[in-house]
């Protein structure tokens, strides 16, 4: 193996043997408990030949949908599972954070748990002692360390776990599985800063995440795993783009998640978009909706809300907020057409739209979640929630003739 390489995975296959549920007799259970591998019919092929090299000091992303096999891969890299075939070579000390707070015991005090967790990661009491103060400060739990963990709030537990993991992780290679989504906003920012720090320190990090923003922001390179194979190995940008395309294939996804509720009286007949695939060339996204009144007469409020693939609410508004001197009025048995022009501020990804109609006093007549959806391929996409068009003006600094005026 090349000196520059931290982790080298060569054609990793992993099969799982799923137990028969029907074999209930004691005899067959005893016989089968030791013959699992003969029952090929129940084999699940989780990984089908995965190879990649991770260089030293690289921030390497692993992305994939649920069930694509990325967690299995991470467990194989961490040597928790052994591959059915193929090899993994690791150079240097590897610390896995498959889950935070491994071995935490609710009946032990915070500080006991720090030492126990440290020992599980291979750090002696003396090594933990040296960093104990930093762990406590990072977790912001100074007054609580001598209390039992069961008296901690869940947020406090997570903070402690993350602090132990991060402060102790001064090893060569880190495996990180979706730990960003913990704690309150303040703590999350701290964690993000920590990741930036890791990047600066040139640690080798294998990072599994669903958050394309995080992948784009931190990773140098990434692989996309789909159905147990490496679908693409490229820069984080390109892999993230490929990942969002995966979801476009799932046409039924939105329909399955549709939900309509409200007190009734008026309803949306249909919601549609002028275009469902949006690129940079589109400055606006046009949303059409048809509203029908069943038994409501008079002024109503109509609105919409746009959510991204991670279900974060990106933007939205309603007729009462916009107030363009248009009063939306509906009449019993009649249909009204609504057209919204939404500026294209979106980053790459898939978006869904909720629409709603309410009385002028704010009572919801109907809320239709995930009524329709659209995809954005924005070539100027940023890793942030929105990517509006920005204009940059620039004038080349020209040398001034004559002396500068010092006053």
């Amino acid at each position: 193996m090349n000196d520059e390489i931290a982790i080298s995975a060569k054609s990793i296959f992993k099969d799982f043997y799923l137990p028969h549920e029907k074999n209930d007799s004691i005899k067959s259970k005893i016989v089968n408990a030791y013959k699992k591998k003969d029952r090929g019919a129940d084999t699940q092929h989780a990984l089908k030949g995965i190879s990649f090299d991770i260089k030293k000091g690289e921030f390497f992303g692993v992305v994939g949908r649920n069930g694509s096999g990325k967690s299995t891969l991470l467990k194989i890299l961490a040597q928790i599972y052994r591959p059915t075939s193929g090899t993994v070579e690791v150079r240097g000390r590897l610390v896995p954070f498959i889950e935070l707070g491994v071995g935490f015991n609710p009946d032990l005090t915070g500080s006991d748990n720090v030492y126990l967790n440290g020992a599980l990661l291979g750090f002696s009491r003396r090594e933990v002692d040296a960093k104990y103060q930093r762990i406590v400060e990072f977790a912001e739990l100074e007054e609580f360390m001598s209390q039992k963990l069961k008296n901690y709030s869940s947020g406090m537990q997570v903070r402690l776990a993350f602090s132990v993991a991060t402060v102790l992780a001064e090893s060569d290679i880190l495996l990180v599985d979706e730990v960003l989504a913990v704690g309150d906003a303040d703590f999350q920012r701290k964690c993000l800063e920590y990741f930036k720090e890791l990047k600066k320190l040139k640690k080798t990090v294998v990072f599994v995440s669903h958050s394309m923003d995080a992948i784009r922001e931190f990773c140098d390179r990434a692989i996309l795993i789909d159905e147990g194979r490496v679908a693409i190995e490229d820069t984080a940008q390109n892999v993230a783009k490929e990942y969002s395309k995966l979801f476009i294939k799932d046409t039924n996804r939105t329909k399955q998640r549709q939900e309509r509720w409200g007190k009734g009286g008026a309803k949306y007949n249909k919601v549609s978009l002028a275009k469902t695939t949006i690129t940079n060339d589109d400055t606006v996204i046009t949303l059409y909706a048809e509203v029908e009144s069943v038994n409501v007469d008079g002024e109503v409020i109509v609105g919409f809300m746009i959510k991204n693939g991670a279900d974060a609410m990106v933007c939205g508004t309603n007729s009462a907020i916009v107030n363009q001197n248009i009063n939306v009025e509906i009449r019993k048995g009649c249909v009204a057409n609504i057209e919204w022009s939404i500026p294209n501020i979106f980053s790459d990804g898939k978006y869904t739209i909720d629409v709603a109609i309410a009385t002028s006093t704010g009572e919801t007549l109907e809320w239709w979640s995930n009524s329709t959806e659209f995809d954005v391929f924005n070539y100027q996409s940023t890793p942030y929630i929105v990517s509006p068009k920005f204009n940059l003006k620039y004038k080349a600094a020209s040398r001034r003739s004559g002396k500068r005026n010092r006053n």
Partner: protein
Amino acid sequence: MRDRFVKKYRYSWILLKELVRTGFKLRYQGSALGYLWSLFKPLFMFIILYFVFVHFLRIGGDVPNWPISMLFGIVLWNFFSEVTSTGLSSVVGRSDVIRKINFPKYIIVLSSSVLALINLLLNFIVLAVFMAIGHVSIGWSALLSPLYIFELFLFAMGISFILAPLYVRLRDIGYIWEIVSQALFYGSAVIYPISMVVSQNVVLAKLLLLNPITQSVQGARNALIGSSNIVASDLTSNIFYTLTPILLVAIIFIIGAWLFKKRSPDFAEDI
């Protein structure tokens, strides 16, 4: 050479120390009397068995200090029983950690055995008190008793190393071991003196002494409390009766270590 050894076992050693430390802290969590239970448990068991077997059934009259020997036997049996029963379920009990991190798995079994060993030492306080009350004189031979206890420890560890991986795959092992362990209890001359068996059937007594538990319990009693506690060499000059149990311990331990080592990489998936 030394460096390589240190490097190889550093992780194991760190982990063992921490698991023993936290295990000890957790042992009597939430109980008002805490560690005193380590003393009370053998004490009350002794009182009960004393009344049943010595007082009413009048067993062991021919062995001087039999009640103290019986207490010693019970303490040792409890140790054996604790090592094997906690060892059996120890791997499954740590499934949460095993699924998330790779570490030397045998430390799990070892740490629960060391905890039982600590408990045994606490039990010796009770034994020492009774020995002082009973004016048992301690000779130089007492120095041999740790060797017998070590034999018992190795035997119990070997069994744990066999049972723990089996239990991962087949939970029936738990019930099976309970039954086997009951049989072993009565087949180990813990609550009756072996001299009682000798007077009825010498062959049976010899067979009982082939059991490593009997050998270590009787040996430890013989060394610490008095030579009236019969060991194999008292019954026969055939060295076979002394060596077989030792060999058995070695075989069980080696099989256990081999099986555990072979199975442990799959624990994370099988649990």
